[in-house]
Structure formats: structure tokens, C-alpha cells
């Protein structure tokens, strides 16, 4: 079996007549952590949603996820959106919310991930009473308990505080390293990308660059991508 778990070729996406993505071609290896970077409106979320199969792409392109069409591989895929909006006054507990996605999931696994994300004490709380950061953690737990082979994360640490953020990325590294889960994430935090990603895709409607963080995250590339002088402070950990 090929080590490529995602293969995208000539992907173009238009929404209501507006071209959002043009001729995107790339592949992702099994167990890799791929970061998609780019300015606002560059099509990062659109690319994720297209890979998942939530958005259609134009004829002539091809996406193969885990050897199948995105639609067919969806039960093996997890997705944490950038924003999750719901009626906060609606009575539903954290446990119920998790169980709706995975009614047959192992109880121990559910408790383990809640504990990893310091949410074990919130299990029976109402979802609407959680803070933004806590809700984000619950969304991540909801995907992890389904044991996805690929995890798509759209700015996953937004709303999570600094200590929670490092803990979160450590867990992501652990999931990727030990479980072989492939992670594709959208991020604006270059330091995080540099530390955790094994591949970077620079997006601005078209794919501007792709490769190892150490090769791609240079001042020149970032300046071209964001249109401004961007300085990258590298974390000592890597």
C-alpha cells in the first residue's frame, strides 16, 4: 500500500462564481503533520473542506484520500472546524455531545482524552456553559475518540490559552508519532508550524510553495506570501 494518504491533483474550487482555489497539486505521507499557511482569504479552509468532501471541486481535478474518494473515506477522517456555532442555551451535556458522534466508542478512551485535555471534570456540564477554549478542546476530543486515520484541524488552538496550546500540540505530536495519524492543519502561528509540522503548504489561491518547514519558512517566502516583512522567531525546542 502506498505511503501517500492524500493525493490532490489540479484542484480548483469556485464558490458562487468566485474562484477560491486554482490548480492545487500536492500529496501527504502517512503520519505526516502538514501545515497549511497563507493570508486571510487565501483558501485554506476551502482546501480543507474540499479534501474532506464537504465542498465540490471542478472537473479535471482528482482527490484520493486513503485510496478512495473523499466521500468514501469520511468515516476514517476527523475534522475540527475553525468555528463551531450553536445555540448556547440549548441543553446538551459534554458527554451527550461526544456520544452523538460516537455512540459505540469505548468509555475508557473517552475518559482518557477528556483527561488529556483537562476536561474530565466538565463531562456532565452543559456544552453552552463552556468557554471558547474549553469548547475547542471538546471538539478535538470528539474527533480523537473516533480514532481517525487523518485529522484535519482548522486553526485548532484558537481560543486555547498558552499552556493549553503547548499541551495540545504535544498531544497532536503524540497522536501523529505513536498512532501514525496523519494531521493536516491550518495555522497562522509560524513558530508552532516550525516546531510541529513535517511539511508546509503555502497557499494564496494557488499553491505558492511546499516542503520542509526549514526550507519553506524563510523570510523571502513569507514576505511573498503575506506581502509584508515577516520575521520568524524559532523556538529552541526543535
Amino acid at each position, binding site marked *: 500500500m502506498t505511503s501517500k494518504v492524500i493525493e490532490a491533483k489540479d484542484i480548483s474550487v469556485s464558490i458562487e462564481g468566485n474562484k477560491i482555489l486554482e490548480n492545487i497539486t500536492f500529496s501527504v505521507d502517512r503520519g505526516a503533520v502538514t501545515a497549511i499557511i497563507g493570508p486571510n482569504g487565501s483558501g485554506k479552509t476551502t482546501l480543507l473542506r474540499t479534501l*474532506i468532501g464537504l465542498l465540490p471541486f471542478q472537473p479535471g481535478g482528482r482527490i484520493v484520500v486513503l485510496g478512495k474518494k473523499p466521500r468514501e473515506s469520511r468515516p476514517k477522517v476527523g475534522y475540527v472546524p475553525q468555528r463551531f456555532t450553536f445555540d448556547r442555551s*440549548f*441543553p446538551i451535556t459534554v458527554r*451527550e455531545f461526544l456520544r452523538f458522534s460516537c455512540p459505540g466508542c469505548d468509555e475508557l478512551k473517552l475518559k482518557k482524552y477528556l483527561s488529556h485535555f483537562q476536561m474530565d471534570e466538565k463531562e456532565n456540564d452543559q456544552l453552552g456553559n463552556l468557554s471558547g477554549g474549553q469548547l475547542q478542546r471538546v471538539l478535538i476530543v470528539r474527533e480523537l475518540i473516533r480514532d481517525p486515520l487523518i485529522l484535519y484541524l482548522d486553526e485548532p488552538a484558537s481560543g486555547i490559552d498558552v499552556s493549553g496550546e503547548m499541551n495540545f500540540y504535544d498531544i497532536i505530536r503524540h497522536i501523529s508519532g505513536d498512532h501514525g495519524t496523519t494531521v493536516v492543519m491550518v495555522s497562522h502561528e509560524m513558530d508552532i508550524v516550525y516546531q510541529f509540522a513535517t511539511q508546509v503548504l503555502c497557499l494564496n489561491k494557488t499553491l505558492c510553495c511546499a516542503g520542509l518547514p526549514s526550507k519553506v519558512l524563510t523570510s523571502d517566502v513569507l514576505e511573498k506570501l503575506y506581502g509584508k516583512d515577516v520575521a520568524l522567531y524559532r523556538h529552541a525546542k526543535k
Partner: protein
Amino acid sequence: MQKAFIAGIMLAAPLAFLGVYSTLKKASFFGDGVAHASLSGIALGILTGVSPFGMAIIVGALFGAGVYFLERKTSVSSDSIIGILFTGGMALGIILLNLKQGYQPELISFLFGNILTIHASDLVLIIGLGVGIIVFLSIVYRRLALLVLDKDEAWLTGIPTSGLELVFYVVLSISIVLGVKLLGIILVSALLIIPAASAKLLSKSFRKLVLLSILIGEIVVIGGLILSYYLDFPSGAVIILTGVGLFCLIAAWDGFRKITKEKS
């Protein structure tokens, strides 16, 4: 009266159950829409001599399917689509009824509800469809909740979201039309909204919300029918006023509870 009780008990549970999802989906207006649009089915039945109740159910199901397809295929908002189909269906009903000469007592019973016009054949239809809807909801309870709460996640977990949403709209429409005989076109949607809205004030979990909604729905219908019998008032109106009264009591209690909690 016996038939009304059986019909009421059979209708309260599915309507209250579905009310939870329509509240979550913020689609309370849907109930009003389908009830009013069903007038064209009733008119068609009166005009052709075919069961007006049966025709209303068919038109109701078509309304649900129509809203579903137009929501997906156009960029028009859901409220506008319901508003257009609601008024269009009602207008068509008025024109069709205009073609029939003379007073239409059956029409009045559909507009305001009349327990005395519930025939044995209607009861069979209400029991059959009511049981079917409850069984369906018991099976898809979790999947439907996820679909309404987070459509993307529902799709990812393998739920056929398009199919389930279409079935939900059709089932919701049929349930509302089933209640038209008891409560009338004008009032029926209240039985969808009041139990879920009342139960929401008392619940902290989804499971409790569903169970309390059904319980409140049954209390409202049975209590309302008993009151209407002894007061000799129109049953539909008394049922709704019982529901509104119960909601006011629960809302007042909830408000009082919040105030005392804040003070302590």
C-alpha cells in the same frame, strides 16, 4: 370525546419530540407554514370528494419536500421559502374553495379544530402514522440530533445527511397536518413549540429535554381536553391556552430560580 383523547395522546408525543429538533434548528415557523399550506390539500379534497384529511397529509408532505429542495437549490433563506410556500398554499386553497358553492362546515373544523369531526378512519390514520413516527424518531434520535446540531460532523460520521434531512422535513410536515383535525390550521404549530420551549427551561441534558417535552405535550393535550369538556369551550383553543399557561408558570419559576441563585 374518546376518539379525541386517543388522537390527542397519539399526536402529542411525536409533535413534542419533533418540536425539540425544530427548536434546535430554529425552524418553529415551519410548523405554521405547513399547517397553512395544507389548506390547499383540504380544499382539493372538498372539491373532488376525496378525503380532505388525506389530501392535506399529501400536500403537507409535498410542502416539506419542497422546502428541503428549495433550501438546497436556491440561495433564498429558509424563512422566505417557507413564507412563499405557506402563503402560496393558502391562496391556492382559498381559490379552490371559491369554486365550491355554499357553506363548508368541514372547512371551519379544519381551520379551528373540532374533536367531534374526528372519524374512525381519521383515528386509524393518526394512530398508524403517530406510532410510525415515534418508532422512526426512537431509531434516529441521536443521528437526527447530530444532524441538526452539526451537519458537517454528521456527514463525517457516515450519516446520509441529505436523505435524513429530507425524511425529517416530510415527517415533521405529516405530524403537523395530523394535528390539524384536533387543533386546527391556525393553532396546531403551538403543540410543536410550547412543549419543547417549556422543557428547555427545566432541562440540563438533551435526554431530559426530549422526555420532558413529551411529558409536557401529553399534559397539555389531556389537560386541555378535560378542561374543554367541562367548560364547554372549543377544544383546540383550550389545549393551546393550557399550554401557554403551563409555559408561563414554568418560565416564572425559572425566572424566580435564577433570581434566588444570583442573590445567594
